[in-house]
């Protein structure tokens, strides 16, 4: 359930900053995930796909990893 909270936080950040304006489908989210962040990429992807927000139904996550505790959204590819 941790990843679901993270997905909701990311959604809130994207909405608040107007990144999803006029976006119908988010295809890819590119993230940097620290090895000490406790995040599992597959669970996070599953959480996005099951948020109940149709824009993320088929989203794929592309992740880079580093030796920190960061969770950073680098870019999204969307329609």
């Amino acid at each position, binding site marked *: 359930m941790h990843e679901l909270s993270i997905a909701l936080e990311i959604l809130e950040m994207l909405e608040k*900053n107007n990144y999803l304006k006029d976006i119908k489908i988010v295809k890819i989210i590119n993230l940097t995930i620290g090895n000490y962040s406790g995040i599992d990429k597959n669970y996070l992807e599953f959480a996005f796909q099951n948020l109940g927000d149709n824009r993320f139904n088929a989203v794929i996550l592309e992740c880079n990893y580093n030796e920190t505790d960061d969770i950073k*959204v*680098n870019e999204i590819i969307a329609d």
Partner: protein
Amino acid sequence: MYPEHKKISIQRNALESNEIIAKSNKSKFELNKIFVVNLLSSPGSGKTSILEHIIPILKNKNIKACVIEGDVETDLDKKRIDALNVPSYQIITKGTCHLDAKMIDKSLLNIDLNNLDILFIENVGNLVCPTSFNLGEDFKAVVLSITEGDDKPLKYPAAFYKSEIMIINKIDLLKVLDSNIEKIKENALSINNKLKIFEVSCKTNEGVDGLADYFIKQVFIKRHR
């Protein structure tokens, strides 16, 4: 690569919203010079028992403590804290596996920050999820009991990486278990070599005074900063 799609650069912290509220919580704590500890552990490692032993010592030194209890269900831990005659506030998360800054912000409406020296936030028992969410605390303290095995720091590195101190609890059981406390310390320090380690037993009180002294020192440092 995807020429027909929009590529939108973001470059932002995924937990930005939580961070903003955590900063606001922290500024309230700083304003009132309250030392704040976020206690992490797996369920049953003894977070509440440690508080039951530490808080009376703090009270004897006229240090005013308060506890925010985070649990998925029930206020059983809060009732134990209430028996110590210190203020407490219960957050029942109803399934959520961690506390976040918003929950703490809301709970602060019920706490008299003007009359407080130290706030313990007992997070939901879980060594994974609570590590991601900054609450505005001064530091995280991870509790690990002897019964959990010496491999836990390696299996759940985030909790140990992000904590300032590790409290090894239930050391009275070393006599009857095969647990290797040196291995626990070695594994934890391999994740975070700055980790300050305390060994305690809430059964025999061993190490409890030393841990209480450490918190007392932190309160005084905060007061005079």
